[in-house]
């Protein structure tokens, strides 16, 4: 929280500078500020990011691996190596995860994949650095895309509405993190839960508080990133779109952490679907990658598979029980039942994440249901 607040403060203080420099220098200026901040706060992270980015650029530029498209494939895999190394348990036990690694690695894979597909041209080193070194999204995302970023850069001009909207988003972000997340969901609801005599109710309130806290923290940090981006005149993609208003799990994952779920759809689901022609296999793999992005551990593997199975259940029930699907999606009462169903399904699946091991997991479920 303190680091993201510091980033917001730096963006706010440097906003006059960004708007004073000539248009040509704005992007370089933003990247320069990010470079300076990271070199003081997280030099290892900066070094790792630049090393991978330069290696990718060299492979694109000089085509070291001239046999077919192997070079492009290497550029897609290269950013994932430090991520896998640091996220495995061995890595976590010995070293701190470099700042923002999960986010910039996926951004680097996105660019490599788009270059591989021929959707975007090989970026120059300067424009690649401008994209990667964007302070508002460095710490907690979103995983914004390069074409949108470049479009935003091209259209960049002073707009007072952007500025006020940015300040408003930052305020909403702080309310979500500080009041709704840290205070209400982390302190007040658990306190009420501890005061109750009913064991089941206590566990239920704790589960609801855990889910609420996760949502408000993450959505709040996304608001800070989007708001800071707007201060600098860059529109960053939305990361949450009222996820608990979704009436089924498929819709929920189109509204929760949109930048990550769309990344998994574009770079895991579609390629695997094209390769194997098996929709369900591709779906489970995409949800597994989404889960493992958070942490490489057994509990996240189980959680990812369950999320995939829940989407599969949604799609199957839509085909097998069309009347129920129509009721859930079109009737006002049905929509609210669907929303409650989604909220509880997601909340209870989060018990898996909150449990340390299989014994703790089975104990939590036993306490809740039996």
């Amino acid at each position, binding site marked *: 929280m303190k680091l993201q607040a510091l980033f917001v403060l730096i963006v706010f203080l440097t906003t006059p500078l960004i708007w004073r420099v000539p248009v040509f220098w704005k992007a370089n200026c933003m990247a320069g500020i990010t470079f300076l901040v990271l070199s003081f706060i997280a030099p290892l992270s900066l070094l790792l990011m630049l090393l991978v980015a330069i290696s990718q650029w060299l492979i694109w530029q000089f085509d070291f691996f001239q046999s077919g498209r192997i070079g492009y494939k290497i550029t897609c895999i290269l950013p994932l190596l430090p991520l896998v190394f640091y996220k495995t348990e061995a890595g976590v036990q010995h070293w701190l995860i470099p700042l923002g690694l999960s986010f910039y690695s996926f951004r680097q894979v996105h660019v490599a994949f788009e270059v591989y597909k021929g959707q975007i041209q090989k970026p120059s080193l300067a424009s690649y650095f401008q994209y990667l070194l964007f302070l508002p999204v460095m710490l907690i995302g979103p995983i914004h895309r390069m074409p949108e970023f470049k479009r935003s850069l091209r259209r960049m001009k002073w707009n007072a509405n952007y500025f*006020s909207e940015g300040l*408003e988003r930052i305020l*909403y972000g*702080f*309310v979500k993190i*500080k*009041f709704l997340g840290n*205070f209400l969901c982390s*302190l007040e609801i658990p306190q009420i839960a501890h005061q109750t005599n009913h064991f089941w109710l206590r566990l239920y309130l704790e589960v609801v508080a855990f889910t609420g806290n996760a949502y408000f923290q993450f959505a709040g940090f996304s608001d800070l990133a989007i708001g800071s981006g707007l201060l600098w005149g860059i529109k960053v993609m939305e990361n949450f779109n009222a996820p608990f208003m979704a009436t089924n799990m498929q819709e929920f994952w189109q509204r929760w952490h949109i930048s990550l779920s769309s990344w998994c759809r574009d770079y895991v689901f579609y390629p695997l679907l094209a390769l194997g022609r098996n929709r369900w296999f591709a779906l489970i793999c995409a949800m597994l990658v989404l889960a493992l992005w958070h942490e490489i551990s057994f509990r996240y593997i189980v959680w990812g598979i369950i999320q995939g199975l829940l989407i599969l259940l949604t799609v199957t029930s839509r085909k097998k029980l069309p009347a129920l699907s129509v009721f859930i999606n079109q009737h006002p009462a049905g929509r609210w039942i669907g929303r409650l169903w989604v909220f509880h399904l997601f909340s209870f699946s989060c018990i898996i994440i909150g449990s340390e091991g299989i014994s703790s997991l089975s104990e939590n479920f036993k306490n809740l249901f039996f």
Partner: protein
Amino acid sequence: MYSWLLKYFRKPVANLLIFIWYLLLIILVLFASDFQAGRFHYLQW
């Protein structure tokens, strides 16, 4: 938020409402930030 208020209220009313709204949010943030280690420090609750 401000543009939304302008749809339903005249400009001076919208200005007042947005001022109250932002003030309320800032107070909420400060209130929540004050709560540390089980008690409110500046409020001394």
